[in-house]
């Protein structure tokens, strides 16, 4: 009871703390300096249609690397946590409809995923979105058959090398363009605005991110599905 009162007090306190902010809040009328620079820069310096992608992959590239790392850590962490548990064989069978459809949809979904991350600099979407989509394809497989076995070697290879190449591309920037150019996409020619082969290394990075996210999420699903 007293606990309940404290909970309500705490939440009430939080509400009162946030209230002034909510009351005074209004949307900005225009972009701030930094955002404007990003929009301009994305067009002029990076040749990338999708400003968000420019921000994600280039301007805040370190964040994205970190983000990939976080996901990687989650994979490793889950692997670490669930390291001893033997995979329990489940005999649950899914409906035939699901089983058949999953085989059929698998390729389609994966292709869509690949499309999304390849066009991350042009259209909404990107590596993460694409990667998640790829993972859902494998989720479908797991749903269809709980005992499905993935080729871990391939998964690991994709995961490891996509990550490694991502870092190495960043490193190439350092190597070629100087100490302030880690993750600089301009190591690859920028191409022409609006084309697939534009925005320098952004599509390459995003593809690697997509692969990495896809393989990692698949591993996570696999691990947790096994439990």
């Amino acid at each position: 009871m007293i606990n309940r009162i404290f909970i309500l007090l705490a939440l009430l306190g939080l509400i009162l703390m946030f209230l002034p902010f909510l009351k005074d809040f209004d949307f900005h009328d225009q972009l701030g300096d930094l955002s404007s620079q990003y929009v301009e820069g994305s067009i002029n310096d990076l040749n990338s249609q999708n400003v968000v992608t420019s921000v994600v992959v280039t301007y805040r590239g370190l964040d994205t690397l970190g983000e990939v790392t976080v996901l990687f850590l989650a994979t490793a962490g889950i692997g670490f946590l669930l390291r001893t548990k033997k995979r329990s064989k489940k005999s649950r069978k899914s409906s035939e409809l699901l089983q058949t459809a999953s085989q059929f949809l698998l390729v389609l979904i994966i292709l869509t995923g690949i499309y999304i991350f390849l066009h991350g600099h042009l259209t909404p979407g990107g590596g993460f979105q694409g990667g998640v989509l790829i993972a859902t394809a494998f989720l479908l497989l797991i749903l269809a058959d709980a005992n499905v076995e993935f080729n871990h070697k391939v998964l690991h290879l994709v995961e490891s090398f996509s990550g490694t190449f991502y870092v190495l591309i960043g490193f190439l920037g350092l190597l070629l363009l100087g100490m302030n150019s880690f993750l600089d996409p301009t190591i690859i020619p920028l191409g022409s605005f609006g084309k697939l082969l534009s925005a320098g290394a952004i599509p390459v990075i995003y593809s690697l991110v997509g692969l990495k996210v896809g393989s990692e999420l698949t591993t996570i699903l696999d691990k947790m599905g096994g439990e």
Partner: protein
Amino acid sequence: MVNPIYILILSLVIGFLLTIIDKAGRKLSLFFLYGVLSFNVAVMFIWFYQFAFVGRASLMIHTAGFIAPISINLKLGLLEAFVLLLANLAGLMSAMFLFKKLKETHISGLILYLVLIMGVNGLVMTRDLFNMFVFIEILSISTYALISIDENKRSFSAGFKYMIAGGITSTFFLLGIIFIYYFTGNLNLDTVLGNSSMLAMKTGVFSIFLLIVSIFIELKPFPANGWALDVYQAVNSGITSVIAVVNSAAILFVFYKILPLLPDQYLMVFVGAGIVTFLFSNLIGIKQTDPKRLLGYSSIAQMGLVVAAISYTTKLNISQDLVFIMAGGIFINHFLAKAGLFWITGIIKRSEIKDWGILRNNTPLLLLFGVLLFALAGLPPFPGFWAKWEMAKIFVSNNLYVGLAAVLIGSLFEAFYLFRWFGYAIKNERKEESLKPVDFSQLFPVAVFVLITLLTSVWIMIRVYAFDLINFLPVAAVFGMYLLNFLKAKLKAVLAIIVVILYGYSIYPLETALQSLFGIIFVIGSGIMIITTMNRKGKISGFYGFLLMMILSMGNLIIAKSFLSFFLNWEFMTIAAYLLILRGKKGQVPALTFITFSLAGAYLMLAGFGFMPNVLSSNAIINTIGSIEIPLAAMILLLLGFLIKSASFGLHIWIPGAYAEAEDDVTPFFASIFSKTGIFGLLLVAISFIKHSSEFNPFYWLGWLGAISAIVGAFLATFQEDVKKLMAYSSMSQLGYIIASVSLLSHLGWISALYLTLNHFMFKAMIFVAIAGVIHRTGTRQMYKMGGLIKKMPISYITVLIGIIAVSGVPPLSGFGSKWLLYSSMLEKGWYLQAGVFFFASGVSFLYLYRMIHTIFLGQLKYEHQNVKEAPIYFLIPQVIFIMGIMAISMFPNLIIKPLNSIVGNYFASTIMIDGYNVTSSLGHWNGNMVMMVTMGVFIVPLVFLILFNGRTQKVKQFNIVFAAERPESPQTTHFAHNMFSHYYKALGGLTKPRIQNFWNSVSEWSNAIAGLFRQIYTGNGQTYLLHILLYIVVLYIFLGV
């Protein structure tokens, strides 16, 4: 120079590839792991060296080819390099500690570990708010996962609680970031700092608050820290040490980075919260018996203190050096000590501090443990000590008295539980089981950190405070003696005497006669007393080092040129004394009491010195103190500190245990020499006071305190059965005389004070040495178990006889001189009632003195002592020397009165006349030499007469007495000894109740009860912890008062 971003690159690449590398074998993976970790250390070392010693400007690294704020940038400056060097080193060492674990565990463990350390590097260097969030998450997630390195239920449940807490705090952090972005349109810390006016309104401060408070909660403030404690307790020690120091260091650095966002007027809230954390965590710490949870409380407390220090220095904007010493000192101290201690808990693997006696099986480990523990307790020469010193100064100069008090009380609690632990390790009963051999991989990290701790300490002493080499001697002595441990005790004793002689020679000549007087007591007296210890056999490791440490630091007190040097040596002395007491067979509890009281005194002094101006002088402080006016508050604090050392009434309960349980040949050092340091301190304060007397005179009350000490000490001594306790209380009583006569602040008063000091030094030394010999031979301290030893140990008897005559003040020996001076000076000053009390006390002293000499040496010899021999020669030599000293000043009082007259003449106009051997005061006169002659005359005449008339007496055997018409045969029933003054006890009634003991007992019980009450908030329920966090945020915001 290696671009520090390579640390991130390399760690990530290896991290990503480790799964594949591991296919080629774990050895390769481990090679890469340690390789990268070593690379990190090397890079940071180079940069640290560049910044600190070459003077390079700090480095800004931008990314993606754009300059911040467009891109995210990293900064590497001196501070960053410093923190990262430590963090990476701890990372490497912890990995080494975990070697076995990492060899066996799943490869993901290695990956997580590697990336965790990378996260730390990124977090410290990044200058972008959101990037901080990302790195915090990297750090957190890898930590969460690593918590499960030992697969047990406790670590899983602790980990889950941790995740809940961490998840919510990072949500708030994120909200803070996005709100700040909303107001400033930027995420770069430096840009935001430049535009801080955009955040000046209420909602802006709120955003900053959200940001800072979530980092603050990651630093585990009391009481929103239950989750962290569980983690510390449950998780593998190697990982815990990473969490406790590496993660904390990184988070702390973030706190330091973002703190300037908050307008100055709000910073005090964090100072307060930090100090509250420090105080309460340490308070609850005293209830802990699990070493890891205990260290957890200590960690939390230390982080609280660092937060307070950082917040306060940020607010005050004081010089960088001071910030470094103060915040940096606490930080590095905590960092090194805590990591090391956590590792040791991982080696020992005992979850009750009572079981830590097993640590003694491994001497090197015990030493490492000791150094780290002393460092953590904030004792010199370790960095925490200097930090607290500066902190006291800064707090005082800004009138933050409550804060200072809380910090010092918290420190005392911390020292208490740490030393209790240490006591168990050193003294608690050793179980039969033996410690498994410790792997080199586990010992090495601890050793490295101990080494760094020591190097840092030395560096601070030399580079920051520019101490003379002589201040290092006490510590150097310990190490020197440790290296010579293989020598036999006698050889070491000779060596120690040589060292003392050389030391004495090196400080001679002293500037003033007052110094020389104390020099005689501290240095020469100690040198003589070392002879006693030559009776020891075997190697006696860990004794002479500490003995020398005590002696040399006492000597350094006399020649200290600054308050800091004085205090430093004061602490050295306390440490050495503590260790020596702990060596006693049952020394555990007395040593703990001693160190607790001593540190309480030291902290009072620390606060007191905080009020003092800095002294830069080439003269000893005792000579320059007259020109310094000590503020009243400082004076009272200092006096209290010194009174604890001189066992004044109310602060005396440590004395019986400490004196009684220290080894028998060490007790003389304590009683006759060590106790005089308190008197030296009193004089230090008094000299300043007489030159700048103020309205309120604390010394008047001190006089009364001395009187009460004298009488109470005498009462207590009267009712002891244990001879060493009896003499301990006697010391308390005699020191009461000295305290009072110092407090007289008059010419005659100070002569009597110094006379008493010298006299007490000699007679207490000889009595204790004689008693040590008796105990050595009889094997008991209970007086009633002895008796009739005069026939077996005549020389010891004579020593004690002369000693007690000197104590009691019976003419013609020197004791009378002290009494005459004392009463004359008291009456001259108008302290009539006090003089009456002293009369009473000196009467009571006859009771215990007679009790002692009669019960031990007279009466009936016990059968088991029929074959007891005289004490060994090593006990007799010092006795004879001191007998000669006492006789000399008794026969020729001018030997001492004249020098004392001239010493005191520097401070007061002389009020006595010395004509030949005749000393005349305004009230009376005393001719010591004539008294001696007359006494010898009146003694010899009847003696000769008796010999002439009754030369041939018949010697009879032991039981030739008529006792109720029977010849008794049992010495036990015939020896009137046990409970000798029962009638007196009855007569005194209420005066004999141990009120002070009861008072301190209840202080201890109350602290425990309060600690027990507070720790109830840690229910173990993750939801409650979350509630604590939310409530804490709300309450802190209310305190912020935006």
